[in-house]
């Protein structure tokens, strides 16, 4: 009896997805470097998508500029290490802080813009940051990029194999999923859903919508910054174009959409499907057909959107499954 309840409980299902991803990734890392590479990127992208989902799926803020946080995190960690010798183990937290600060700076003026205007504003941030990075080579090495020298040392997050990176990325994902989980239940679920459904009405009931939106953006920015930092450490070479690119911002959305938006598992599912698909196509055709992966992904996205979300649905409103009875139990279970 207890076991079935455990299996049914939402928390354990969410944990289950995470553990599945972790298991698959560990196995992949042990199999071969190629598989391990997919696993690391999949875990990182899963976190990227989950962080986007906090803003988009839960709160209704369509961000088209996650690359801004990603890039800032990557550069913060990489530069601290390469220039000041500060270990990335501290660097990723600095990256989180920078992501948070950036979120505050960008969010404060732009979050009061409505729908499409906010989306357009988010597009600008990575472009500006990239330009600043290119224009200040003394600080950032400009277009030459930053290289993390290969001197394996666990103390500086430089490893020879993939497995350690898998574990780091998985830890990050776990944090992201935990935050997402907490935000999608109880009082936060109700508060964010109200804000998302009708901001005006939410305000008239006392919800300080500006603060909530900024808060969610700050968390999302911090998480995304950390993803950027780990990515920089793993790939060991970053340039303004690679980390501030629109592609990364779009990937964040793709991961969430493919994974089903709004649910805690969306990031995991989407991340593994997107990265897996891409890497598999790339490795299969070995660059004979550049762009094929994007073609498949774009088509899948189109079909998904057409089929799943129907005519009047909103992308940012997750499909509500489950019986009303379950909802009552949720609201009655005080945490």
């Amino acid at each position, binding site marked *: 009896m207890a076991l079935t309840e455990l299996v049914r409980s939402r928390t354990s299902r969410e944990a289950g997805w995470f553990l599945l991803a972790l298991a698959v990734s560990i196995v992949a890392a042990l199999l071969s470097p190629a598989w391990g590479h997919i696993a690391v990127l999949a875990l990182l992208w899963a976190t990227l998508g989950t962080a986007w989902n906090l803003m988009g799926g839960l709160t209704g803020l369509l961000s088209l500029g996650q690359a801004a946080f990603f890039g800032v995190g990557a550069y913060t960690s990489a530069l601290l290490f390469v220039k000041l010798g500060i270990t990335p183990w501290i660097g990723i937290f600095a990256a989180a802080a920078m992501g948070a600060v950036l979120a505050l700076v960008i969010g404060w003026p732009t979050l009061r813009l409505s729908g499409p205007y906010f989306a357009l504003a988010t597009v600008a941030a990575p472009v500006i940051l990239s330009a600043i990075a290119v224009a200040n080579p003394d600080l950032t090495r400009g277009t030459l990029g930053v290289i993390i020298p290969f001197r394996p040392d666990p103390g500086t997050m430089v490893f020879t194999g993939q497995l350690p990176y898998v574990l780091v990325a998985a830890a990050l994902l776990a944090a992201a999923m935990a935050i997402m989980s907490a935000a999608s239940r*109880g*009082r936060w679920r*109700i*508060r964010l*859903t*109200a804000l*998302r*459904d*009708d901001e*005006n*009405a*939410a*305000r*008239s*009931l*006392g*919800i*300080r*919508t500006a603060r909530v939106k900024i808060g969610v953006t700050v968390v999302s920015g911090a998480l995304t910054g950390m993803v950027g930092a780990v990515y920089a450490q793993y790939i060991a070479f970053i340039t303004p174009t690679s980390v501030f690119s629109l592609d990364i911002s779009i990937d964040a959305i793709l991961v969430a959409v493919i994974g089903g938006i709004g649910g805690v598992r969306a990031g995991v599912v989407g991340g593994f499907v997107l990265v897996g698909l891409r890497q598999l196509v790339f490795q299969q055709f070995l660059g004979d057909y550049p762009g094929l992966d994007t073609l498949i992904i774009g088509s899948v996205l189109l079909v998904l959107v057409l089929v799943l979300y129907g005519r009047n649905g909103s992308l940012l*409103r997750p499909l*509500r499954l489950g019986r*009303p*009875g379950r*909802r*009552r139990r949720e*609201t*009655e*279970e*005080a*945490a």
Partner: protein
Amino acid sequence: MSAILEVQGLTKRFGGLTACADISLAVAPGELVAIIGPNGAGKTTLFSCIAAEQHATSGRVLFDGTPLRRRSQAAVARMGIGRTYQIMRPFLSLTTAENVMVGPLERGRSLREARAVADAVLEDVRLTPSADLPATALSTGQRKRLELARVLAREPRLLLLDEITGGVDRKNLPDVLHAVRRARRPDRGIVMIEHNMRAVRALADRVVAIVDGRVVVEGPPEVVLEDTAVVRAYLGSSYRPRESGEGDAGA
């Protein structure tokens, strides 16, 4: 006991138009005051000024003796002023009960407490059977009551109802009236903008008639609703009040 609400010489002008001209009124705790008047007479503007969402051009608004300055919607709600709007939508992704819980949760109540408050309020507005249904399942009349329930769950000291009977048909009207009656508290002031004279007669302690931005007459419902100036301006000179007070203004 001081007035919950005091409006002193409130004038609001925008762009050459005078929406409110030197309006004064007071609402004591426990009182229910109805504001009537033709469309465009400045009633909703008055509400916006009272709720501090807009600046008055001149005059003051005192809430519980404290003068109000311009505030955001959220700040106004947190101060204890609750307001319903003509165009407002329920949170469609939440259930009825969850909709009502939003307010108490923001006041710091726990999930369980908020649910208890919501249950009590839903009882008052007669929406208990729909508590765990998604808000999308509610009819217009029910949604109006849900709006009332949502704002009541915040336990406001001043309740501003903007045409709460708007769009409610005859069948559902008694439920709405019942809900408003149940909302009365000795420490709460209620002001309602109303077009439905049956509601006004049934609920109001006092009626204030506003025409062209000015208060033309003020007093008990029987007096104001028979007043010639009001009748002419508002109801049209062909209106004849019937014995049972069944007259409805406008449509």
